């Protein structure tokens, strides 16, 4: 089973996601903004994947920023983005290559599928 870092500024959404992911047997870590996420990523804590919301209240493209720095810190880390917003070309240019994307609102099944795909 894997260790997944969830970055989501909405407490309810974050906790429901945490509950779902743990329900499939994974371990979760959570952060609500860029700084918290980077603090965890810089720690010696083992992490297999990052599941991040792109639009964070403190930074419009905060999730993109987290992913870029995360890959720099931990090459080979799996990344799954999510957002309810339309993906613009500007946003696309900021997405790390070889990563995955899930549109909001997502169902439990869709999240499960995306997590599985991320690890294949």
């Amino acid at each position: 089973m894997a260790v997944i870092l969830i970055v989501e500024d909405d407490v309810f959404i974050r906790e429901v996601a945490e509950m779902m992911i743990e329900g499939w047997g994974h371990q979760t870590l959570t952060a609500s903004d860029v700084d918290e996420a980077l603090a965890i990523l810089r720690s010696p804590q083992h992490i297999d994947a990052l599941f991040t919301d792109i639009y964070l209240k403190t930074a419009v493209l905060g999730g993109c920023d987290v992913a870029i720095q995360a890959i720099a810190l931990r090459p080979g880390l799996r990344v799954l983005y999510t957002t309810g917003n339309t993906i613009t070309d500007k946003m696309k240019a900021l997405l790390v290559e070889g990563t995955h994307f899930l549109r909001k609102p997502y169902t439990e099944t869709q999240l499960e599928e995306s997590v599985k795909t991320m690890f294949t």
Partner: protein
Amino acid sequence: MTGVSDGAIALRQAEETLLKAGALQNAIFNSANFSSIATDAKGVIQIFNVGAERMLGYTAAEVMNKITPADISDPQEVIARAKELSVELGTAITPGFEALVFKASRGIEDIYELTYIRKDGSRFPAVVSVTALRDAQNGIIGYLLIGTDNTARKHAEEALLKAGALQRAIFNSANFSSIATDAKGVIQIFNVGAERMLGYTAAEVMNKITPADISDPQEVIARAKELSVELGTAITPGFEALVFKASRGIEDIYELTYIRKDGTRFPAVVSVTALRDAQNGIIGYLLIGTDNTARKLVEAEQKKLDQRLRDQQFYTRSLIESNIDALMTTDPSGIITDVNKQMEALTGCTRDELIGAPFKDYFTDPERAEAGIKRVLMEKKVTDYELTARARDGKETVVSYNATTFYDRGRTLQGVFASARDVTERKQRERDALTLTNEISHRIKNNLQVIVGLISYEAKWTAAPCVQGYKTMQARIGAIAHLYDLISQTSLGRTVALDAYLREIAKAMSASLLGNMSGIKIEVEGDPVEIDPDRAVPFGLLVNELTTNAIKHAFPHGSGRIKLGVERVGDQIDLVISDDGIGMKNKDSAKSPEKRGSDYVAIFVRQLGGAVVPTQQGLTGTTVRIRLPLLLVPSGGTEPLAA
């Protein structure tokens, strides 16, 4: 010894005498510029010098002892000369060599013009001087013909003749007034042109008045004053003022108003020449005048046209300068050829600095600027092409360019005319609107995510048979969220393009419900029709329900095709969802999830103000056709026409 031998001996003696003659003769004889031809008494050439060889093209060997000078002369002229001399001298002279030397043989000095013919057949005028060569007893032993090429002189004479003809033509012309005076200015000659222009007969003016009397007195006074200042000597207002310069040998042409006998006036251009005697003393003046009225009229008209043109140019320029947009023209290579004040303000450079400089240099992205010019040249017109101008002080302004090619009257491409509008504020408003849209979208989607999350949580504690209902509910919420995105992508301002909208729905459903490996394909065939944004969500939900039904029930073997289409039928739209699956089956009427789905279909159709069109169903496949009014809201209106 025969006579001929004696002659030959005598000739040689003469030749020797000739050779012993003075340096001048020697020089002439050896000169390449004089042809010296010596003959015997009968005319047969004996000597043919270098000058003769050069002028006539024969070598001495070719002519000596063979021909006479008459054979290299124009035969017509020789005949004519023979005739003339026969008359003049009262004796018959044979047309031939005799005609050339007859006078000389009679001891008369003879120089005449003659056309010589060269070996190559070309001709040239020569002046020939003939001398008889005599022995000690004064008997003629031969002739010496010295010739000079007269071509240059002939040309000069012809030119002189032409000039003379011109002078005569001017003097006799009714278009030039020629007035000759004596030294004091009293008119002596008054030609036809002067009579015609001034209305006087020659008899009325000759020996009576001076040209000053038929000139505007004010102008004569003014001219006297001017010349006095110019030449530093007091000049009397009168005839002197008209001829003073000419009397000093200065070429003089000026404008003057002549007054006719009837008192009317006309502008003339007068050219004055002093007439001189052999000792160079002035004996009079010649005033040649041309009527300048037509030219003056043309000049006045031209002046008016020039002024009108300047006014027009000023008006056009003021329009360009008062434009709120920065205007500019470039040549086809993108070099600026003209700008207005707004362009100076935009770039912080002066007009002089901008003209001649490359257009692209004034933008943050020169390559895009250059590409813009190339696009205009290719497509003849470009609209709303955004560039960021960078002024000299570093200030950046986002501008939107509209540009076209422009041509001269001969339809030759001159370059590009471009106008740039400052869209900084508009861009800021767009950015603000986008930020707001993103923020709202983020909140809506998060709220929907919360609802989906709540349902997921609820479903965990629900009995298994009910779980499917929760999942369907989640899928519908997901569809609504997605439709919002699609509407924003396919919206053309007030309306939503249905064909593009259907394609997006098909793409999304294929991705979320079918996956890449599915044997079920969703295709779209749509006329370009639009609906109002208010109906776009129920329309999308309707498509979602019908397509989901097809996916779930039409293909038990997991493969087939679903077709989504919109057709324009008059002022209505048909939504057609068809599949090539197993066809409609009788279903029980229990409230299964599918039944609820068809309830929803009925609700959405009513919401859209439409109706299901009954269709003939085949053995296989299912087709559902729903007819909707084209627009609930007329363009520009706000009130619904029908509910």
